[in-house]
């Protein structure tokens, strides 16, 4: 009871000093929770075109945000939204989402596409997207369990040249057909 009274006195005092004049800068959670309206609570996205961020690697989130901000990575809303934050805030958000329990989407996948995608992955992607896209190497993202629709939009951006890629990725990706890319998306989405 006594502790509670002290807490109340403290909170009343903080309030009396005018909350916004004596307040701390936004915490990682304050920054990141605002993203959840589109990316789901803690980054557990329920919308197939919005990537799940829960359990994503910090570096991949930071690099994505920097890419959106510079315009190097194409986007709809993210180019503008990323301009609202500093590099330090990108780091804070990356840290926040990377610490969340990895989220596996629940979606209907085509078995034949998954099998075909597994072969294509082994041949073309496995050197960088290690452990079937579950682990990260350099700044490659975690892709295992991601939404098919999101992966398809990303690959379409690469394939059309809208999104730049380094030479080794381009060498591997350019010869692939639309149905190949589709199969690869299904494969990564299937990895648990």
């Amino acid at each position, binding site marked *: 009871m006594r502790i509670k009274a002290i807490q109340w006195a403290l909170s009343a005092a903080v309030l009396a000093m005018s909350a*916004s004049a004596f*307040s701390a800068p936004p915490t990682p959670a*304050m920054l990141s*929770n605002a993203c*959840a309206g589109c990316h789901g609570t803690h980054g557990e996205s329920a919308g197939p075109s919005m990537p799940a961020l829960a359990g994503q690697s910090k570096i991949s989130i930071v690099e994505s945000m920097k890419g959106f901000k510079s315009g190097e990575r194409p986007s709809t809303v993210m180019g*503008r939204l990323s301009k609202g934050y500093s590099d330090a805030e990108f780091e804070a958000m990356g840290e926040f989402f990377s610490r969340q329990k990895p989220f596996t989407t629940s979606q209907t996948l085509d078995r034949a596409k998954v099998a075909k995608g597994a072969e294509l992955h082994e041949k073309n992607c496995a050197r960088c997207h290690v452990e079937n896209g579950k682990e990260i190497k350099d700044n490659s993202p975690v892709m295992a369990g991601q939404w098919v629709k999101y992966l398809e939009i990303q690959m379409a951006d690469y394939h059309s040249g809208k999104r730049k890629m380094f030479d080794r990725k381009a060498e591997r990706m350019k010869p692939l057909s639309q149905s190949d890319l589709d199969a690869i998306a299904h494969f990564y989405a299937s990895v648990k």
Partner: protein
Amino acid sequence: MTIDRRSFLKMTAGAGAAGVLYGCASTGPSGSTADVMPKTGRRVVVVGGGYGGTIAAKYIRMMDKNIEVVLVERNDHFVSCPFSNLYIGGLMKDLSPLTIRYDKLAANHGIKLLQAEVTGVDAASRTVVTSKGTLKYDHLVLSPGIDFRTEEVKGYDIATTPEVIPHAWKAGPQTVLLRKQLEAMPDGGNVVLSIPLAPFRCPPGPYERTSMIAMFLKQHKPKSKIIVLDANPDIVSKKGLFLKGWKKHYEGIVDYRPAKKVTEVDARSKTVLVEGLEDVRGAVVNLIPPQRAGQIAVAAGLVGADKNWCPVNPTTFESTIHKGIHVIGDACVAGAMPKSGYSANSEAKACATNIVNMMNGREIVDFSGINTCYSFLSAKEAVEVTGVYKVDKEKNTIIAVPGTVGVSPDLSELEAIYAESWLKNILIEMST
């Protein structure tokens, strides 16, 4: 300890000098002034189960399981205003994709639900009066949405006019009524849409509605058109994109007339009067009345000098009029943030964070919020507006971070795909 009717009245009489108990007379005769849920520990009461209230309740519980949260809502479900224009335009069979219930949210987070109408708030004794009894709180979050300033439209009766001339600005039966009227309208009849002066709920909403009704007319009533009477001097939001969309898809169907303020209505003849002078008659009339904060915020004395909206601290969303009461969503004055569902979502999280900080004697954390708001122009094309918002400490208000506010470069099918995912995510965030 249960407060009986007599001791409650005594208590409120004592508090009468400092704070007024509002709406006491409207509490029912069946002992509804009794404490419906005696408070034993720390408690936050959240009023309103929409875009703001559900999120505030959820995030308080996620951040501190030792705070009891009671969510008070008069309905057992909520229908989203965002996307309801798509239903009106015929792109949705029913309102089920826009409807959420509260059972999973309550079970997942241990939120206590009270389905009741809130009739009054006593700020001094920190008590909420509901149709089922009273509730004590340490902090109260009001997310009441909007109500209508019908007194500014002569001839408008809140009980009967919307049954003939729907506003459809609170989603649910009104939305269904407007679509039914459109379907029943003779080909060649005109739709009249009246837009109030800003600020109102969802700045691009009336123009999206114009687009969706025009799309419906083009397909089903090719001889009809929609006359838009806008009280504002110009299109309030996403102007270039709406004009582009109307030219591309609805040339000759949309008759947009700026600076036409509807001041009078005659429901019987389905006629509206512009500035009391010009008669405009429609086969279907969709009159969106001017707005203010939801009734309970007005009754609780939380509206500011403009008598319409609730001034709040931009970091805690605590009312600048009554301590311990926080107002979020459309009802509050959130600086540069628009009155949108996404804004309410962001405001709710910041409010929840800082209520938990206040209740634990911790430092208040600066607000950081986002708005993203999609509008459909056709069945497959959408546009959006974005912004990142922070507090300007010198001006003590919420401002947009430079460079973050902007709209889509063009009508876009990709934006429509993202819009669908936005809806899924935000409704699931509110209901689980």
